[in-house]
């Protein structure tokens, strides 16, 4: 197939050693004609330094309010192939595991019914099939469901939860992030597919403090693995590491709580009650140290991107959540907590207000109380430093005592 558009600027991006997305668009165009016009329009954007997509646009499949992001060229006459160029968000598997068989089938759908161009994966976690026409959406949807895959979230709905590889291939995992992620995704299908929230809501599950899903930065609800008991130490292996590098410099001194000590005689000692489960020592000596055996998670809330009051990280909501125990009940306790949070959000939140913003607006203390949790010092970096305390009660009828 010969090229429809000249793309001298984009061609520059085929040079260099890193795999080229331009080459990928071209390869997709070999499979799907419409994709040629994408090259043309992107080249024009490169020339003019400005975007050429129209503002938004609602599209979808029957019974679903989300899962498709509408996208329309603002130069449809010039680039008719991408007049409609919607994204289909398809739920990834928990942990992003696939077989070649399944992947081939999944991309075939894209070749046949859309642009043959994908994001593996989107930043939230979905597989994104780019460039679907409205008329093809239902077919695409049905083809994916036949493979056992459903649509992800978009709009004012739950987003596709995502998780780290966890127990499947990581010795640091303190709870089964994949199992929980899958379980929660299945439990909240309705909330994902039918937008009734004030705004989006995201779950991410990382099975230890390394937080390989970056949940603390971008999930409204972050579940991050931790443990209750002591770090397991293999003193011989510690000694071996000591031969490779300076234990004090690279491990002991970098412990944020300064709760470790080492001597050749006494070996490594950890004051576990002071350890904040930061993971550093374990990361540095994975053959010698392991998290404790009583795994669980810390639940945090409220992270989001900057709009509209500045970026946020998640804050501690539940210092220790016994995941394994709750998994036995299909995560009933967790789901109940989530329902309470969503009810509160529904009642007090305004349109386009993420949960983190709402909590800030009403006050952490009030929020905690409303969802039935206790205020705990783990929730704060430090207690208040200003004296403007809104004490809720005062004694009255004191007049006669005066003067």
């Amino acid at each position, binding site marked *: 197939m010969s090229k429809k558009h000249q793309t001298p600027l984009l061609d520059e991006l085929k*040079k260099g050693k890193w795999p080229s997305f331009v080459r990928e668009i071209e390869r997709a165009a070999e499979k799907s004609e419409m994709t040629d016009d994408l090259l043309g329009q992107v080249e024009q954007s490169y020339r003019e330094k400005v975007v050429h997509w129209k503002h938004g646009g609602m599209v979808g499949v029957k019974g679903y309010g989300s899962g498709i992001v509408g996208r329309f060229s603002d130069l449809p006459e010039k680039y008719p192939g991408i007049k409609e160029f919607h994204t289909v968000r398809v739920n*990834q598997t928990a942990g992003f595991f696939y077989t070649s068989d399944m992947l081939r089938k999944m991309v075939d759908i894209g070749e046949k019914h859309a642009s043959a161009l994908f994001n593996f994966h989107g930043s939230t976690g979905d597989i994104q099939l780019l460039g679907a026409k409205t008329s093809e959406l239902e077919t695409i949807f049905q083809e994916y469901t036949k493979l056992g895959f459903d649509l992800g979230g978009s709009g004012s709905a739950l987003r596709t939860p995502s998780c780290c590889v966890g127990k499947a291939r990581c010795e640091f995992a303190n709870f089964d992030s994949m199992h929980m992620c899958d379980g929660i995704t299945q439990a909240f299908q309705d909330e994902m597919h039918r937008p009734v929230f004030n705004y989006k809501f995201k779950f991410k599950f990382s099975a230890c403090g390394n937080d390989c899903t970056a949940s603390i930065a971008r999930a409204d609800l972050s579940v991050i693995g931790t443990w209750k008991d002591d770090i397991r130490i293999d003193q011989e292996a510690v000694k071996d590491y000591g031969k490779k590098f300076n234990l004090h410099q690279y491990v002991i001194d970098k412990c944020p709580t300064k709760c470790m000590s080492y001597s050749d005689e006494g070996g490594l000692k950890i004051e576990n009650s002071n350890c904040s489960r930061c993971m550093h020592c374990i990361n540095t000596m994975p053959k010698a140290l392991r998290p404790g055996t009583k795994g669980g998670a810390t639940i945090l809330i409220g992270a989001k*991107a900057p709009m509209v009051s500045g970026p946020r990280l998640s804050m501690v909501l539940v210092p220790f959540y016994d995941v394994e125990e709750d998994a036995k009940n299909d995560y009933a306790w967790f789901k109940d907590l989530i329902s309470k949070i969503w009810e509160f959000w529904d009642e007090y939140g305004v349109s386009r207000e993420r949960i983190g913003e709402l909590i800030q607006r009403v006050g952490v203390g009030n929020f905690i109380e409303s969802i039935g949790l206790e205020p705990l010092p783990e929730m704060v970096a430090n207690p208040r430093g200003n004296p403007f305390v809104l004490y809720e009660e005062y004694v009255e009828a004191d007049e006669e005592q005066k003067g």
Partner: protein
Amino acid sequence: MAEVQGAKRITDIGPHNYNDFLHPVIKKNYGKWKYHEILSPSHMVHVSEDGDKIHTVRVGSPRLVSSSFIKDLCDLADKYSDGYLRFTTRNNVEFLLDKEENIKPLLNELEKLNLPAGGIGNVVANIVHTQGWVHCHTAASDASGVVKSLMDELYGYYVGAQLPAKVRVAFACCLNMCGAVHCSDIAVLGIHRRPPRLIPEKITNLCEIPSTIASCPTNVIRPDTFNGKPSVKLVEEGCVFCGNCFTVCPGMPIADPLNDGVSIWVGGKVSNARSKPTFSKLAVPYLENDPPRWPKVVEAVKTILDAYKKGAHKGERVGEWIERIGWPRFFKATGFEFTKYHIDDYRLGEATLNYSAQVRQ
């Protein structure tokens, strides 16, 4: 178009269960991994309590890929990893092998296909990024182009050269920051710098006025009328060019070729290791868009990496290095100019000032 027939139609099934896609060795040792070793930037091995091993070979991907790219991967997986593979949270591909002897041939074939094996350990990881001019309406810059230009330059750091610690680079094409740009070691952020232009016809017809007004972080969108219908007006001086008004109201386009560009941020992190998670901080307020290869952006990122490599102690993330030497020395080391734009004047800005006489002289 396929007919929508209630009966046949499958809905709300969620994603395919992962159990169907796990390598047998993984299934057997699920939750029983004991330790791992990083043998090279492209290869690590996990060892289970039973002594079983699973090898991971990691491969970089541009993320925006064709079906053919995926099929190439599938062919490799069939040949070397029993058909099993996964993706990482940063869009790398991981082949999962139980046969050690397959590693070398796999690496060889990857090289032939020009696919970069690497990304494990203290390297520059794959750049998390977004849609840009390829697919999003609010983009102030392209995503894939900047990322490609950067990764070509940083290629050596992906496949081999060791850094003091992991370096996570991220790109977002607008202040919506799809991805974890706000908490990356180095972040490149597309920005607008000219207030939105108001198209009253569109505003009155297409926009919900209260939510348009509420969308503004600095409250400079004020109620107005146009032809007797509710509309909005703008106090341009207080606009911080966030583009949120355009997100909720198509009548307020903000993209502008002469003023759009990118800013560069440093020192964010997400992990809880050692220091707490923290936002990336402003390093370079503005660089113009210079497609197709954004040389100024590439240079700025290189400058940071070079200074980091030179100055950081082993084990220090970019932000931890800067915190140790202090921000004044970061600006000295990179040659970046410190301007009033670096001083946070937004909502919680007060919490970022130097309330101490701890000053390096």
